[in-house]
């Protein structure tokens, strides 16, 4: 009996230690959703009322941009018995991709099949080259005639190794430099986009303007990452070479050099992309001259941030509400693109007809696409419609009457996506987040690089540091 007691008490002691540690091991799997700051708004799944008789169109995305387009331009065409289930996960820290990947893997076994999911340029290849996406021509049934007006680059990036088109987009995303007219007048003496462009047409001139802005008490840029895309889009090779080794392009190191200088000399406001301070810098109280933004950024992000009374609180998109009308755009020092959202049809979808209708309406129909641009100032993926608007007397009220579509139409054909890799999202994010510490002065450049490699390999275990 005594030995039994001893055995049991020893066993208990061991078990207690073990359970404590097992908790440590199993716990962290859950808080993934908490890791994203706005997890509260993360998943907005439809009430479970969707019975088996009712058809459900299930769409995965990371913000409400596509939802807005969908509701405004396609919802009326939905058959009455179809309900839409939006699953929205923020893309921070790969959270969206992780959620999507998990659910795609269960696609065959679940009744809640994903019909449509959205992807970004930064990781498009990962899905385009997989079996989880359907062929837009062969499986969905769009014809070459339907697709003829789309920008070629939007199709090239979404074409897999076998020449199958796997995704289509309603937007093209050339980037421009958006600037404040009032500050331009104050410092440069003119707010005319052509004149301003002359003063920022290359990086040397851009830096010279930064000095002038600083002397008058303004900031040239808001944060560290503002100009990142203009450098990272003009690299000479992809992030990762054929031996899975990470390669940092010299052009990206130029961004490091410029940003460090801007930070030390006070040309920027030390904010971080998407931070509340960064958003505030674009608003009425901001003292920042310019922001690098592509198409969606101007009508979606910048417009929203410029208002004094937000749209959600009933604010109007009109002059007088905040600094609506005070922005203008010019080409800026270098050609670049930023983002872009592609629509994929998920393999295993049970709503092919609706998906075809949706793709056709939002990405091929010139009438709808022209209307989207006119209503929302987004730049849509239809060359005929866009050139029509570019050559018309179209005016953007938000940009003080400028026809920015003409500038986009000029920049769009120059977009080159040949240097993208499936790792761009994770590596770009790891890179600029690691260098935040360098600009803040808490690490040296070598330490920042070291942290970048560490973070990258944590995200993608197959990648290697350069020797």
């Amino acid at each position, binding site marked *: *009996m005594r030995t039994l007691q001893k055995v049991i008490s020893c066993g208990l002691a061991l*078990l207690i*230690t*073990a*359970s*404590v*540690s*097992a*908790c*440590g*091991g*199993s*716990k*962290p*799997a859950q*808080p*993934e959703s*908490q*890791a994203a*700051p706005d997890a509260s708004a993360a998943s907005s799944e439809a009430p479970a009322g969707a019975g088996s008789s009712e058809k459900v169109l299930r769409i995965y995305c990371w913000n409400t941009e596509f939802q807005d387009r969908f509701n405004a331009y396609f919802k009326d065409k939905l058959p009455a018995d179809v309900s839409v289930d939006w699953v929205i996960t923020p893309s*921070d*820290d*790969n959270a969206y991709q*992780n959620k999507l*990947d998990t659910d*795609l893997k269960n696609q065959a076994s679940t009744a809640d099949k994903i019909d449509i999911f959205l992807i970004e340029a930064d990781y498009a290849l*990962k*899905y385009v*080259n*997989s079996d*989880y996406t359907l062929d837009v021509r062969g499986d969905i049934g769009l014809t070459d005639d339907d697709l003829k007006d789309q920008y070629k680059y939007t199709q090239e990036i979404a074409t897999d190794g076998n020449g199958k088109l796997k995704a289509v987009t309603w937007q093209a995303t050339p980037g421009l430099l958006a600037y404040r007219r009032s500050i331009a007048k104050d410092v440069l003496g003119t707010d005319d986009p052509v004149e301003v462009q002359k003063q920022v047409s290359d990086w040397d001139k851009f830096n010279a303007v930064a000095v002038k802005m600083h002397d008058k008490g303004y900031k040239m840029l808001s944060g560290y990452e503002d100009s990142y895309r203009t450098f990272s889009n003009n690299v000479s090779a992809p992030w990762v070479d054929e031996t899975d080794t990470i390669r940092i392009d010299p052009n990206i190191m130029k961004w490091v050099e410029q940003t460090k200088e801007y930070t030390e000399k006070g040309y920027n406001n*030390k*904010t971080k992309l998407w*931070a*509340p*301070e960064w958003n*505030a810098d674009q608003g009425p109280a901001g003292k920042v001259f310019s922001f690098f933004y592509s198409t969606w950024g101007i009508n979606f992000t910048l417009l929203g941030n410029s208002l004094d009374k937000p749209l959600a609180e009933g604010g109007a998109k009109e002059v007088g509400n905040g600094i609506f009308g005070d922005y203008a755009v010019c080409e800026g020092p270098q050609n670049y693109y930023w983002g872009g959202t592609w629509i994929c049809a998920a393999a295993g979808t049970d709503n092919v007809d609706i998906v075809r209708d949706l793709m056709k309406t939002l990405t091929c129909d010139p009438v709808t696409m022209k209307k989207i641009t006119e209503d929302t100032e987004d730049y849509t993926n239809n060359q005929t419609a866009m050139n029509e608007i570019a050559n018309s007397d179209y005016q953007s009220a938000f940009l003080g009457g400028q026809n920015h579509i003409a500038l986009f139409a000029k920049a769009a054909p120059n977009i080159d996506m040949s240097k993208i890799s*499936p790792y761009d999202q994770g590596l770009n994010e790891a890179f600029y*987040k690691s260098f*935040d*510490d360098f600009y*803040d002065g*808490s*690490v040296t450049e070598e*330490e920042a690089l070291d*942290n970048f490699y*560490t*973070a990258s390999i*944590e*995200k*993608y*275990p*197959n990648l290697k540091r350069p020797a």
Partner: protein
Amino acid sequence: MPAATSVKKPASIHKKNQKKSISYAKWGYLFIAPFFLAYALFSLYPLLSTFYNSLFENYMNGLSQVGPNFIGLENFKTVLTQGDLSKYFKNTVIIWLMGFIPQFALSLLLAAWFTDLRLRLKALGFFKTVIYLPNLIMATAFSMLFFALFSDAGPVNSILLNLGAAEPVRFLSNLWTTRGLIALMNFLMWFGNTAILLMAAIMGVDTSLYEAAEIDGATSTQSFWRITVPLIKPIFIYVFITSMIGGIQLFDVPQILTNGQGNPNRSSMTLVMYLNKHLFSENFGMAGAVSVLLFLITGVLSGIVFLSMREGTLGKGGGKR
């Protein structure tokens, strides 16, 4: 037939023995069985499978799975040589101590005051509730709150600017302010809990000892150090070990506050955050290896604390006897 009798015989002997000294032990084992079953299913099995998984190369490359390939102790080698595990361990311990030391001191002080017969504090129940309240807030919500409060353009900075600070303090870009905020949150969340534990311990001390000491002319400081502290030492061990294990598992507060980055320079990256990095990229082999190492660290530290403090109490108790 003969076989049957041979079975019966020992059974009857056994019965006789039982009648002499009735044992209810089997009922005891029966009653505790559900715990062991649940434990084996939900804790022991995952624990063992973590060990097992740590021996494989097993991760996702894009949408395709790599492995599982058996690679022996390769994951442990990678973690120990390239993983900066010691750095994250150091971060964790520093942040934990920054929170635990003031937390313990304040809790002890509060517990002493609340239980002091001479002070006769009013509304004790109210105070006990209030100091425990921060613990009821979810750590993530608490962390979000601090993130908003201490951001570069947050309320704390606007107060500082109004008070005449030259420029905003960038709390979350600075090593010691970031660690300090995490420690402060831990401190705020747990000091009430510790205070209540210590209070329970102090109230368990025989009041006649204090009365006797008072009659002998002891001051309250003296009776605190000479009576209270030695007698509640076992509770100190408990508080220390539980807080240490909680500290090693520190995750949600720094994860939310630094947006999963452990900034600046990964100096507020704790062990479990590092583990989460591997889990998040579905690198199960490496995550398993980190978990196993975490288990060993926790086990060894708990053992050291337990043994060292238990020896102390036993020695004293034995001496008195």
